[in-house]
């Protein structure tokens, strides 16, 4: 590749400059995937090698290993390049096991469900 060709890659909006780098992929359902970008196309379909899902509940987090993932482009919100110099997460956050994060996730879901059902029952008060 010529020198100007290489420049084009870094000036363009394509994901070429992110190839073989560790990335954070944010999906439309709020999931966060981490992995190394191995391939992509114009729809932002992407192949992540060594992918894992980072689940965050409050101050707890867990990386659940997934393997090789092909992501359909329409689900992609954002692809971020991770700055290897910087901490990936704030220092106060605690890494926990898969079992613990699932438990915390369930507790959080139950709490929001409860809030939703309470709100529904109170709807006659019309507090909007």
């Amino acid at each position, binding site marked *: 590749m010529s020198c100007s060709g290489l420049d084009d890659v870094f000036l363009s*909006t394509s*994901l070429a400059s992110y190839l073989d780098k560790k990335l954070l992929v944010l999906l439309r359902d709020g999931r966060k995937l981490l992995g190394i970008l191995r391939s992509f196309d114009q729809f932002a379909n992407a192949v992540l090698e060594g992918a894992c899902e980072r689940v965050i509940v409050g101050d707890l987090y867990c990386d659940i290993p997934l393997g090789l993932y092909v992501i359909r*482009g329409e689900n992609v919100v954002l692809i971020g*390049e991770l700055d290897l110099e910087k901490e*990936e*997460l704030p220092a106060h956050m605690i890494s926990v096991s898969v079992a613990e994060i699932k438990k915390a996730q369930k507790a959080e879901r139950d709490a929001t469900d409860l809030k939703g059902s309470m709100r529904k029952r109170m709807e006659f008060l019309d507090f909007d």
Partner: protein
Amino acid sequence: MLFFSYFKELVGKEVTVELKNDLAIRGILHSVDQYLNIKLENTRVVDQDKYPHMLSVRNCFIRGSVVRYVQLPPDGVDIDILHDATRREARGG
């Protein structure tokens, strides 16, 4: 293609991109393509505490389809030029 050309003029300026999931990211506009996909550099999330996973993201690619707003610098838009370009575009080029 008007907005594609327009965004190309804004490359190098600082913009805030608000996404449909309410995440707002401020950064230098690096490039834009025909789908209005956007690449930002030197990014920071407006509400950092709410999105801790974005802490170490410095450069990012945003899919055009998830963008709600792009907030521009006050001097980023020349109304007269945009006005003329809009009329030209409406006439078919």
